[in-house]
């Protein structure tokens, strides 16, 4: 469990980043931090992970105050942070050494370490054939997986990922997000992502915290947060297109808080179809079914 109490952070050159943030993240949540650049989301994520010490207020992770001395090793066992650019994290000459570094540094004995590395690599999608490869020469997607695997190897309860889908194509984005969802659902990890991509947030996050100028602007279940587009506009965030469409069609009875393409399509079908039996989806054009309320344009 992570608690931030009146957390404030100012960079050494004087730039204020966070201005009194108080929040609690319970174990097992899937949270997305959103907001304009400079709003403080990455700073907040780093403070929660103990990488930055608060200028005022405090952060407590699993009972440990992040500002205390010598707690880095204990913190790292509870909360792991994956950076946006994997190149900043990878420093070993072999993938295997990279993944095993964390447990080694924490004093895990060798046999247990090997088991952990193999398990975590499998979960992260890093094939054993890659173990003796040099991380520098792998593709960006693979490097990110190695970075995630090396963070997972420490077995933190909480995993923070900075921009998991930036620069990825759709397939790769889904792969990463499904992977994080498996960690969340099946292994009970708490997941915190920092991201700009609202469709990803809408489809995967359970709770959204929006930041604006160093303060919390909105904090709640995803549907509720995206139901306030005017508020979100303050931090230059727009809800995903399907949500915008749903709100525009709310007058017809469509649920205004649709978050995904599937939900919106089902909603429209439900509302437009009325009691009429829905035609079985087939590829190619379909003759409109007979009955009242057939649609308009040709």
């Amino acid at each position, binding site marked *: 469990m992570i608690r931030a109490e009146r957390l404030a952070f100012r960079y050494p050159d004087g730039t204020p980043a966070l201005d009194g943030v108080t929040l609690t993240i319970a174990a097992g949540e899937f949270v997305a931090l959103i907001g304009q650049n400079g709003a403080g989301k990455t700073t907040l994520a*780093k403070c929660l*992970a*103990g*990488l*930055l010490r608060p200028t005022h207020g405090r952060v407590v992770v699993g009972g440990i105050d992040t500002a205390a*001395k*010598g*707690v*880095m*090793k204990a913190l*790292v066992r509870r909360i*792991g*942070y994956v*950076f946006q*650019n994997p*190149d*900043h*994290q*990878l*420093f*070993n*000459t072999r993938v295997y050494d990279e993944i095993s*570094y*964390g447990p080694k*540094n*924490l004093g895990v004995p060798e046999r247990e370490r090997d088991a952990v590395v193999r398990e975590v690599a499998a979960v992260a999608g890093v094939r054993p054939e890659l173990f003796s490869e040099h991380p*520098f020469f792998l593709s960006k997607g693979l490097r990110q997986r190695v970075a995630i695997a*090396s*963070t997972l190897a*420490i077995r933190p309860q909480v995993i923070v990922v900075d921009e998991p889908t930036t620069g990825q194509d759709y397939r790769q984005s889904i792969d990463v997000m499904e992977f994080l969802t498996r960690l969340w659902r099946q292994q009970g990890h708490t997941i915190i992502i920092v991201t700009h991509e609202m469709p990803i947030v809408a489809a995967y996050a359970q709770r959204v915290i929006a930041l604006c100028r160093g303060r919390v602007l909105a904090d709640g279940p995803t549907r509720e947060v995206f139901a306030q587009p005017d508020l979100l506009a303050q931090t230059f965030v727009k809800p995903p297109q399907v949500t915008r469409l749903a709100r525009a069609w709310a007058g017809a009875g469509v649920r205004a808080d649709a978050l995904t393409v599937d939900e919106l399509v089902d909603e429209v079908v439900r509302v437009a179809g009325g009691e009429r039996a829905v035609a079985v989806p087939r590829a190619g054009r379909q003759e409109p079914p007979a009955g009242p309320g057939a649609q308009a344009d040709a």
Partner: protein
Amino acid sequence: MGEAQIAKKTLLGMVPADSPFYRFHPVGRMALLIFLSVTPLFIDMPEVNLGLILVTLGLLWWGRVRMQQVRRYLPLLVTVAIFMFGVAFLAPGNRTALTPIRSVGATFYFEPMWWAFVSYCRLIAMLFGAILYFSTNRERDTLVALRSLGVPFAVSYVAALSLRSAGMFMEDFKTIREAQQARGLDLESLSVVEKAKLYTMYTVPLFAVALRRADEISNALFAKGYTLSGRPAGGGRRTDYLRAQYPVRARDWAVSVGLVGAFALVAALSKTTGVFSDHLSPLRAVVVGMVAAR
């Protein structure tokens, strides 16, 4: 081109945009650097060097540099003094050839202490010359000065790029340090030896990031039409828009030639006539007198 700014940011601080220094061409300012910073090498007499320091302080004040910035260097001055005089006290050399002074229960030796003083004055004069330059000049000013002096474009460009890379390097270093902390590296609890051993944790990512960026920058340079010689597409000399913003006036010639001339004069005099020798220093005479009186 920046006229609307109230203050310009230099390498070591801020200076008002209407500072009198900006009425002079960057080459003149660089000539001032040479005069204030290199001349002390030829001057042993501490009074002259102290005088130069006063001149430099005066110029800082005249140029409207914020004096609080200068105060930041006090700890450095004190540390250097402690170091130099400490060495002179603890390791004076062949004691039999030197003049001892007994004071406050310890034995000082005149010659090494005097020499430490002479060197200290010289060093501080050079340092202040550099402080004045870097407090009143931006990277762009240095670039224009170099180009005006005929430094080839590629050289001045690479120098500028290195300066900028230093900034990026510091950014990357900070991020990498955080990334390693996230792997459980707790720097505070490590000994110096252990910290040194962990340098691979930093150098490998730094190189990786730098290599990738170098690759990308070389493509970016090509994309902007840059060829290694720096010569433009149609041939002929490269236009220099920045230099064109700094017209050279008569006073700039006067200042540059005057300062470089003065420097040359001092150097020549020092080597030939020894007029700046510390043995001619009035201060030395006074101190020797005090020592002899004991």
